[in-house]
């Protein structure tokens, strides 16, 4: 089945798992690696088409995209050997989705009873006449200090995101990059493209680059722009142009 056109315009998602779950349930699938491979394209298309994504969020979305890419690539290229860590990322995603799905289900039950038959406390806040009883040490100075500490602990607008996001490259950039390089040298290897070194332990950022690159490559495969071959297991994946006329990207 082709990925088809899906329209989720105007709908908002509470993060990557919410989106992913929506896509799976929309196709009436159960959570499994098979269904995840099926919705990987939908997911990627969605995050690609979402323009106004806050930086912090897009990092979370891309991390999940990277796992989906692994799942999808394994289904396209069964000879692809996954590392233990990659396999566990996949298992982990499935488990998280199942847990999230369960809590979503429970949240429906909760929303159904919330405010339905509430138990009220007394409207009357105070049952006696107030008796003026300050603390001796309540002075203008202590109040000034206290308001200072309130103001100091106010939430600061998004400073968290940057560390996660720094090295994450946008999907679009990756696709452009890949397209250009495929055009210039008809044949290249995936590791050359992604910078992945065999046997070297990759940092998290590098890993994201690799999977995003891979994802981009798969996109091109799907669109018939390039074809991918792998001579034997563990070998590099070769990318080459299939068509002569590469569509022009803006």
């Amino acid at each position, binding site marked *: 089945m082709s990925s088809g056109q899906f329209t*989720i*315009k*105007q*709908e*908002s*998602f*509470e*993060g990557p798992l919410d*989106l992913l779950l929506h896509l799976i349930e929309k196709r009436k699938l159960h959570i499994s690696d098979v269904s995840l491979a099926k919705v990987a394209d939908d997911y990627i298309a*969605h995050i690609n*088409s*979402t323009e*106004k*994504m*806050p930086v*912090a*969020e897009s990092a979370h*979305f891309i991390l999940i995209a990277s796992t989906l890419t692994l799942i999808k690539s394994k289904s396209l290229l069964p000879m692809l050997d996954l590392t233990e860590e990659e396999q566990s990322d996949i298992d982990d995603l499935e488990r998280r989705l199942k847990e999230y799905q369960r809590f979503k289900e429970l949240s429906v039950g909760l929303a159904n009873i919330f405010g339905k038959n509430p138990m*009220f406390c*007394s*409207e*009357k*806040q*105070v*049952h*006696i006449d*107030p*008796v*003026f*009883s*300050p*603390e001796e040490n*309540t*002075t*203008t*100075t*202590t*109040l*000034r200090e*206290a*308001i200072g*500490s*309130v*103001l100091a602990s*106010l*939430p600061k*607008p*998004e400073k968290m995101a940057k560390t996660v996001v720094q090295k994450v490259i946008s999907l679009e950039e990756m696709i452009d990059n890949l397209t250009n390089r495929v055009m210039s040298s008809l044949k290249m290897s995936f590791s050359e493209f992604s910078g992945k070194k065999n046997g070297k332990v990759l940092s998290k950022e590098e890993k994201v680059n690799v999977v995003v690159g891979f994802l981009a490559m798969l996109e091109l495969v799907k669109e018939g722009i390039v074809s991918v071959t792998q001579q034997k297991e563990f070998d590099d994946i070769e990318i080459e142009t299939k068509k002569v006329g590469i569509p022009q990207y803006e």
Partner: protein
Amino acid sequence: MPEETTPQQSNLTLDAKLEALLFFKGEPVKKKKLAELLDITGPELEQAILSLEQTLSGRGLRIIHKEDVLELRTAPEASALIETLIKEDLHRDLGKAGVETLAIIAYKAPVAKRDIDYIRGVNSSFILRNLMVRGLIERTSSRQDARSFVYSPTIDLLGHLGIERISDLPEYDNVQQEIKAFYENEKTSETTTEKVTD
């Protein structure tokens, strides 16, 4: 036994409903109003009152029945216990949360509970109650909206602080600016964080 009024409330007897109403109001309520709320006649109400009085006998609560009003109160036998409780509440340490809430009210008065909660990031119901019992703050109807309440320091508190008006608080204007900046900042950043919209 009283008849059922609506299916939803059918589990409760009339006197149980009466009890709930009096508890919720927490102050003297006119019998006429109670009969209206319960959708019953005067004699039916009298019957329910009698029945509730019987139920409450030996319990910790009593009905105070004065002419045309009713009120639910603690039983007189519990008065010594309540006295102890009141004393404790009046002399309990205000704690960091208490002093901070007091400071917000002092610097931002008159201020709605919603705004206090928002700036503290937690719900302030219980602290506000304690500050009121201690006569440090008072609650009045908001000028903008009679249905909502605002809190201000009491005259007694200003006296205790040795100032005549809240603008005599240290760095009053600076603090005003900072508080204002927070509310404005929050309003704009709220929409852009954490939600991904298509």
